[in-house]
């Protein structure tokens, strides 16, 4: 098999520190993400993985450090602006509109791309309708891609958890992100669902060239699909490299398996 082309650094995180009162969630974290790669952030519970994602997409503001995205450096990210710049994300504890259909949920992901105003849309005026059709087509491609055709009109709340996760991914894809942040995409899934999700993540990366930053607990998954891995423990970076390098890193082994002091 041919190897994929990994580009230059697209997202650079430098010396990030984040604390909540006396709790230091992240201490002096630096790592970078290259274009088209799958970058994993791993670590035990409470290591600061989700906090790291939240800093990147502007939910949290770190006290120190800077994030550079496509050459622009920010001391803190604004979550709306992050989305406009092309960073999408999924959530560990699904944040979907449970009462709305799959299509409607995916259409919300197109929100930023819709140009026509509220009044135009409410009155279904020509341009607004044409625009809606255009976005609906985009959404249909995502439905096809994620193989959820059978559930188009099903309210999301009625779907099994594994499929809801897929819809969550679909909504993030709908905004056509350049970088996709996935917060534990396989959490709570059975083996088969995990395999499906792995395939979708790999396909997103391959078909759309989307750069993926993912947090995951399942080591098997991480080691199989990631190009590079960052390891956090108690808010500190203890390892960074290819899955093989990380696997043989003494500090990582002791963080995961414990040490006999």
């Amino acid at each position, binding site marked *: *098999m*041919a190897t*994929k082309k990994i580009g230059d650094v697209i997202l650079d995180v430098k010396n990030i520190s984040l604390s909540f009162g006396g709790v230091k969630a992240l201490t002096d974290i630096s790592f970078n993400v290259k274009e088209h790669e799958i970058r994993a952030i791993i670590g035990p519970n409470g290591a600061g993985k989700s906090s790291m994602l939240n800093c990147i997409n502007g939910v949290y503001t770190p006290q120190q450090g800077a994030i550079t995205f496509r050459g622009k450096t920010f001391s803190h990210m604004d979550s709306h602006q992050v989305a406009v710049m092309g960073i999408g994300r999924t959530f560990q504890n699904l944040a979907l509109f449970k009462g709305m259909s799959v299509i409607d949920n995916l259409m919300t992901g197109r929100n930023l791309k819709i140009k026509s105003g509220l009044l135009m849309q409410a009155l279904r005026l020509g341009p607004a309708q044409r625009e809606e059709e255009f976005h*609906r*087509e985009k959404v*249909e*491609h995502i*439905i*096809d*891609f994620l*193989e959820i*055709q*059978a559930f*188009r009109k099903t309210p999301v709340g009625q779907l099994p958890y594994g499929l809801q996760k897929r819809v969550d991914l679909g909504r993030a894809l709908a905004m056509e992100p350049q970088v996709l942040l996935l917060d534990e995409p396989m959490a709570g899934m059975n083996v*088969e669902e995990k*395999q499906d999700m792995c*395939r979708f993540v*790999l*396909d997103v990366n*391959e*078909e759309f060239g989307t750069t993926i930053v993912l947090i995951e607990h399942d080591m098997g998954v991480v080691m199989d699909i990631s190009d590079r891995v960052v390891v956090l423990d108690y808010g500190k970076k203890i390892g960074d490299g290819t899955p093989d390098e990380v696997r043989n890193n003494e500090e990582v082994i002791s963080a995961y398996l414990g040490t006999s002091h």
Partner: protein
Amino acid sequence: MHTTFPQLLLKHASERPAAPAMREKEYGIWQAHSWLALAGLVEQLAAGLHQAGLARGEHMVVIGTNRPRLYATMLAVQSLGAIPIPLYQDAVGAECIFPLNNAEVRFAMVEDQEQVDKLIEIRERCPQISNIYYDDPRGLRKYDEPGLNALDALIEAGKAFASQNPSWFRDEVAKIQPGDVAAMFFTSGTTGNPKGVVHTHASLLDRAMAGASFDKLTHAEEVLAYLPPAWIGQNIFSYSQWLACGYVVNCPESAATVTIDLKEIGPTYYFAPPRVFEGLLTSVMIRMEDAGALKRKLFAACMNVAKRVGPALMDGSAVGALDRLQYAIGDLLIYGPLRNTLGFSRVRVAYTAGEAIGPDLFTFYRSIGINLKQLYGSTETAVFVCLQPDNQARADTVGVPCAGVEIKLADNGEILVKSPGLFQGYYKNPTATAEVLTADGWYHTSDAGFLDAHGHLKIIDRVKDVGRIKGGVNDGAMFAPKYVENKLKFFTYIKEVVAYGDGREKVCVMVNIDFDAVGNWAERRNLSYAGYSDLAQKPEVYALIKECVEKVNADLSLDALLAGSQVSRFLVLHKELDADDGELTRTNKVKRGFIADKYKALVDALYEGKTAQFIELQVKFEDGRSGSVSATLTMDDAKTFSPLKAAA
């Protein structure tokens, strides 16, 4: 009909160029392919394959679900005088090795990454495979397997050739004769290697036309193609008859959306094996049980009227005015909306075949106004041997011989068939051919049956499976395993049954519960369970199955011929019988002998009168890995009825 499949394509393309030939739902919209566009696509594919070196008389496999480009490829292959072989898309790699090597296949057209992976996996054992074309490029971008190409690339290459040689395609098509081999179908076969059934354009088209004229099919029919194209039934309905009649074949979006697509398309001509009809009915009944009290009462009342009046109305016999009125009200309130929900609003002719259908199931569909009928045929006969006329559909017969067919019964009860639709023989297997196709032109179906008083054919079982009880109270009684199995399978709670009794003193059965139906039944009774195996072994479930077995016994005791086939003991299996584990054929028929060996411990325990038995089994998962499943199964006795008591 003196013609061939590619000629028919050109005929439709010139007579009705803009009419839709196929529709495929993609991106949420039904996309139509006109006959003209399809003919163009076939020409390009044929040109591409010709350039790639596909030779006259050579075989090419197509593997995938029902897609316009799959059928277009079959037509393209036939246009070159080569022979398409559709293979089952859900077969595991190892199962494809024999057909590929047997027919020396170099060319393959497959649907997607899953099928490509399958061929790559077995490529070492089929070294002659040189060209693999895939329809859907998803996930295949990084593959650099030699000989692997996108179908789009083949079409592009063909386009250039076709535009330089505008008359080439028509010349090629004109060379094909009706007597040429048109396609080969591999029968799943319950024993040994599969056999390639060779059919000509003439044999397939003759049967397609016979069926079409029997039911007066026109080019206005709508058909939904959702069963495997490798199965001759699907191939007749969405290929042979499609080209013979020129109607529209609709391809569903995915396997999961078939029920939605069925409702949207509203086919006029429909075909499904009994298990599909059963699945639909089960889903209706489960939803009905969840409905409110008023709806349930209304449903029950209307269904009673339907049961009483519906079949008579379908048969065209006399029905009183009051009954007619009641039925009309029921039709307005329940049957009509129900037909619509099932996607059967426009069905003019619906067929079921392949397995026996339960009388309740059969009557249900006819009673709500769906013209469901049965037919009899096999791969070797190009399907149509017997068909039920519109007004004479019965659950226990398979109809009258259709045009061109002669039927004769051998001394052992075997049904012999002579028809213009008979196959040429099994590919490279004259011994097997000689066993079933005798020199006098009769095909031995290996089904045992008889013609009833109205000239309708009735099937009992496979000839070789009809056995005798040996020893015990029923010594020498006739034992028809499939007959017993089917009677049990007619209960919604039972999905699969294997019956043993030949050469033994009593009949014992192993049962697979229907997970949906029994699961729902259990939930309704607040019966908690962890999964299939756990549910199967619940004492309450045993009681439920026991009730079914005893009802069957009571029924069998009334049958003078088969009273000795009553079931004495049974057990419920902890795993579903599965084609991937070799327990079922690809068409979901139980492989009785194989199962007897694999589950020997259980069968022995049944006959030894044990009440429980431990067993450990190897299973294959869908991703190709294997593991083992073990359990201790309970066995139970069932009450049997003496034939005398029933008669008294």
